[in-house]
């Protein structure tokens, strides 16, 4: 974990209700795709945890959903503003378990960390495929970016306004895969688990207090005892997850 000041290079709308923010600063604490950052905003007591979409040696790309007053405020910040950000948080995805043909399944803004994951898997010589689900075409994001990577990518929308009409679980049927990486709303995670044919890793969202494991606000029960979503997660292996009834 690093606590540092990061300068906004870009902060623009990316889809309906979703913004893209590029931050410049020290990225040395980030060690895996699927980790997150925690951003302090003036006038808000707790930080805002946002998953990392992609990063390089000097910048971090975030895609964030306008979910409340904090992220609304964030969306109004201009280029050049400096933010107090904790980086290198959470465990991230373990790419070593993927096999040659992993399937990445994203829902809504949950597709963001899968983009960085996809790039990492490609660089390891693997052939990832991706399924991304959105409510409607206007909310679709990163689809061009995934296609540009040369990845086999499928898009579903609930209203059929883009790609196949339906859910990610429908599109998953058409793909053969060796492993799963999943990120999205909790109902989607559970639905994917119900049709999953292989092991995999699921990334969870949570209401967090600190984001680095100190406050125990985001504890959850797993098959291997209690874990903190912010510190021991947000990515959990399918076999350790206890789905809430």
């Amino acid at each position, binding site marked *: 974990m690093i*606590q540092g000041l990061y300068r906004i290079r870009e902060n623009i709308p990316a889809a309906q209700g979703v913004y893209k923010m590029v931050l410049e600063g020290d990225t040395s604490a980030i060690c895996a795709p699927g980790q997150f950052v925690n951003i302090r905003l003036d006038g808000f007591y*707790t930080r805002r945890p946002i998953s990392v979409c992609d990063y390089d040696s000097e910048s971090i790309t975030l895609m964030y959903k306008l979910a409340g007053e904090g992220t609304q405020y964030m969306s109004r910040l201009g280029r050049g503003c400096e933010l107090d950000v904790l980086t290198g948080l959470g465990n991230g995805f373990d790419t070593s378990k993927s096999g040659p043909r992993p399937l990445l399944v994203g829902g809504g803004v949950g597709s963001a960390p899968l983009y960085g994951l996809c790039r990492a898997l490609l660089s390891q010589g693997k052939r990832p495929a991706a399924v991304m689900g959105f409510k409607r075409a206007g909310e679709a994001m990163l689809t061009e970016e995934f296609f540009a990577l040369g990845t086999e990518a499928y898009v579903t929308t609930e209203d059929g306004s883009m790609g196949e009409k339906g859910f990610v679980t429908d599109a998953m049927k058409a793909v053969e895969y060796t492993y799963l990486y999943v990120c999205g709303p909790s109902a989607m995670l559970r639905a994917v688990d119900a049709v999953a044919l292989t092991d995999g890793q699921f990334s969870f969202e949570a209401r967090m*207090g*600190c984001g680095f494991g*100190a406050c*125990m606000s985001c*504890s*959850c029960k797993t098959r291997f005892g209690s874990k903190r979503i912010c510190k021991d997660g947000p990515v959990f292996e399918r076999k350790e997850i206890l789905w809430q009834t």
Partner: protein
Amino acid sequence: MANLKVTLSGWELDNPVIASSGTYGYGLLFTDIYDVNILGSFSLKGTTYEPRFGNPQPRSAECEYGVLSSIGLQNPGIDAVMSEELPKLRRHYRKRVFANVCGSSVEEYACVASRFDESEQVGIIEVNLSCPNVKEGGMNFGSDPAMAARVTGEVKKAVSKPVYVKLSSGVTDIVSIAVACEQAGADGLCMVNTMPGIRIDLRTRKPVLGTKTGGYSSPAMLPISERMVFQAYEAVSVPIIGMCGVSTARDVLEMMMAGASAVQIGSANLLNPRICKEIIDALPAEMEEYGINSLSEIIGSAH
């Protein structure tokens, strides 16, 4: 040169800044950010006899000026803290810690405290009174002078280390509880724990937190906790550690002038993990600004 040293029951601390229980884990989470050995000390996560998972979600709710939380004493139990957490901590932290002790019965408090008493890494036993008395109706031990005194007395009997009692804030007469604890043998008081509060979700029309109510911590609490320290200082002679709302070096000076011998920094650690270091670094300049050579000379100066 500014003298930041303060003394608690014969233990000389390099400075009065102590990180609060429940906001600092077992210390190791902060080692990425700064050398935790600069602290006066810190207080371990509240420990019970058995492991506890804690309360249902959601456990925290952001507020305008702070956070409302209800964690429910999640901890791995005294055996795991003694055999795993303290040995791990020893590799990173050279000083002694406060061991925060919780329980759902008087016997549990005494039992957990006696185990911590065996550890040379523990400097002070901190008794957290804000736990429900499960055997006797579920009221907090800290809400009643007689119950608070009974816990204090039994823990005192079980240990040889100094016992500091952490008082609950949501009470009608904190001074009577402070006095009761001192009379029962408390070597010091920690004042105060978070303030009970509630938030309602406008959409569901129900409380946000899984336990309905939680503890509010905020810089906005400072005048209230400071008033409690001020009042208790006039009624007891044991050292008081001021807490709840302390988040700047100036707050430290104020709290000490109100009567605190040291301070604890709580939820501010969660917002800004570097806060304790920032406060310690800022203290000498603030002391100079206000003509203070030695922190121990200002304790209770407001009286």
